[in-house]
């Protein structure tokens, strides 16, 4: 297993380098990307199996024992998220290939493949690293790839959105460096397992300040209230597969970082837990209210991304096994379902030429399959049973009610209201896009750009990839029993940081 552990990062990087060299041979690029991600997925599955059976796999990179070298750690949480992200990356890649192949336009593709692979490497790096500074590097790797992908088309909307996105991300990166510096100043180490021990000797007040600084840093990435506003402005402008991956994965990397750092480095800080519950409520409610007033499908979905991050925070704020297990399950569910919805939005745009709710309609008749592909993840997002969203939400609600605190119960109420309003938003979309009088196909506003829209038909690979994603969401319902068992064990690991520390520093 130790041999495999660095590969989810190394292979995509190698392939990205290769992809740059292959930029003239599109087919080779495509094959390389698909092959790499398939291998990474297989490795991730193997890592997960081993992590669940034997506990965390640890590799000291370069053979330098921590804290001198950088440790890679695949515990249950990391491995699980790695599996999910690798699957999602693969499915979205197929979708993107379907979109690109059908478009017959290739100008941006030469950059797309390497960047996409680097994005995957960055995400894997963030999940696996056991080093705070390396986590910063991982974020940068991931982000720089995302900067390029979000501005892939170079249109004025993309550039405007790209500025917002890049500048906000850069600010949070600077703050991340600041936080790493402060942690190093206080502890003399950046290895997280090592720091976990040393932070115990740091005065409570400073620990709190450090915990909150990291929370702000990751909160920006995870789009937590009040630092979420950049997301709905920037995500929707990117091409659909890019938005899909961003919405599904990038915010979750932020959530993962919050989960990891708060439980490992700052266990038992009650003030942070309470704050997280408050932020969870605000994130959920403000996000979903934003979704209700949008006319653009992709923007609407972007607001639901924000809103549903709140659920994950809620689980973390409860700081109990059940709460964390629910949060992790919710993360898994949300990665899959939110990605799927953006893929569907891409298909809608492809068919109708617009993602405006007001300008589309009656798609249920023209594209019954697409209607079904929308309906299932949309209902799942709204938490309609027995879909995955319901199961994850149920876990959180049960955890919060058994916590019984005022904040926790308030959060339950907010979670239920959010659920209802999400359903409202999803029903609005259904009602205006899929029901009603079929609308005219809006011609492609910019026939010169990479993306062809308004073609009134969709390539099979795009639909197939979306169907695969929908099936993945349904699969969560089926395997929910073992999956919840796994997330419970992962949550238990998080609440017992000594396991992590002992695995890294034997």
């Amino acid at each position, binding site marked *: 297993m130790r041999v495999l552990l660095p590969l989810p990062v190394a292979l995509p990087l190698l392939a990205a380098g290769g992809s740059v060299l292959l930029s003239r041979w599109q087919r080779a690029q495509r094959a390389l990307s698909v092959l790499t991600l398939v291998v990474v997925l297989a490795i991730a599955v193997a890592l997960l199996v081993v992590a669940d059976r034997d506990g965390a796999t640890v590799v000291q990179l370069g053979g330098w024992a921590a804290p001198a070298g950088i440790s890679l750690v695949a515990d249950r949480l990391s491995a699980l998220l790695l599996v999910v992200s690798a699957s999602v990356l693969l499915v979205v890649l197929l979708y993107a290939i379907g979109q690109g192949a059908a478009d017959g336009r290739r100008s941006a593709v030469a950059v797309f493949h390497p960047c996409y692979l680097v994005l995957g490497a960055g995400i894997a790096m963030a999940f696996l690293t056991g080093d705070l500074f390396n986590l910063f590097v991982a974020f940068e790797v991931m982000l720089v790839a995302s900067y390029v992908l979000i501005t892939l088309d170079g249109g*004025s909307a993309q550039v405007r959105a790209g500025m917002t996105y890049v500048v906000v991300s850069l600010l949070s990166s600077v703050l991340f460096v600041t936080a790493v510096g402060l942690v*190093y*100043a206080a502890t003399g180490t950046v290895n997280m397992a090592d720091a976990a021990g040393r932070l115990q000797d740091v005065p409570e007040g400073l620990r709190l300040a450090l915990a909150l600084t990291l929370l702000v840093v990751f909160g920006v990435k995870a789009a937590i209230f009040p630092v979420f506003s950049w997301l709905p402005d920037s995500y929707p402008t990117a091409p659909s597969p890019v938005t899909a991956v961003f919405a599904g994965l990038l915010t979750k990397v932020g959530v993962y970082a919050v989960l990891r750092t708060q439980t490992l480095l700052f266990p038992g800080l009650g003030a942070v837990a309470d704050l997280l519950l408050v932020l969870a409520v605000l994130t959920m409610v403000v996000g979903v209210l934003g979704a209700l007033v949008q006319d653009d499908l992709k*923007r609407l979905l972007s607001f639901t991304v924000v809103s549903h991050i709140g659920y994950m925070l809620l689980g973390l704020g409860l700081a109990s096994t059940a709460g964390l297990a629910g949060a992790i399950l919710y993360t898994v569910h949300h990665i899959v379902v939110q990605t799927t919805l953006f893929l569907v939005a891409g298909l809608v745009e492809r068919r109708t030429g617009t993602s405006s709710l007001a300008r589309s309609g009656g798609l249920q008749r023209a594209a019954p399959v697409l209607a079904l592909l929308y309906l299932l993840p949309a209902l799942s997002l709204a938490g309609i049973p027995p879909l995955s969203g319901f199961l994850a939400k149920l876990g959180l609600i049960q955890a919060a009610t058994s916590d019984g605190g005022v904040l926790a119960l308030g959060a339950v109420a907010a979670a239920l209201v959010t659920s209802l309003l999400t359903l409202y938003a999803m029903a609005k979309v259904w009602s205006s896009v899929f029901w009603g009088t079929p609308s005219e196909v809006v011609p492609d506003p910019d026939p010169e750009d990479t993306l062809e829209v308004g073609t009134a038909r969709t390539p099979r690979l795009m639909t197939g990839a979306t169907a695969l994603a929908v099936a993945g969401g349904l699969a969560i319902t089926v395997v929910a029993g073992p999956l919840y068992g796994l997330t419970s064990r992962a949550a238990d690991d998080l609440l017992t940081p000594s396991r992590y520390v002992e695995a890294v520093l034997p």
Partner: protein
Amino acid sequence: MTGNLTLALLMGLLYGVGTYLLLQRTLTRVVVGLGLLAHGANLLLLQAGGPPGVAPFVGPEGAGVVVTSFGEGTADPLPQAMVLTAIVISFGVTAFLLALAFRSWVLTGDDEVRDDVEDARVARERPQEQAHTDPEAEL
């Protein structure tokens, strides 16, 4: 460790001025602000390793000792390596941001970060009344 007041104040100043510039509309200013912030952050990270010392080179005669309090020893090499990484990363990303500014100039003629159109629409629009019909009203 003891604190170095000069450096601490300088960092505060760099962050403060950087922040001030960041809250402006023009992308050039924003980039300059980010640059100042990055300088401040790099300084902070370096300073986190403790006071200055001898450059961390080890000769065959043996290793030095990292200084942890005021006195002549070897400067902590880890923050230096981290700062180096941070400098290079922020250079790459800044260059990208400048390319974005260039692209913005190509498209709009300046590098101002405009407000989001859709957000403005949402904020401006009056909520439309829910269509409400009472089938019995005309009975």
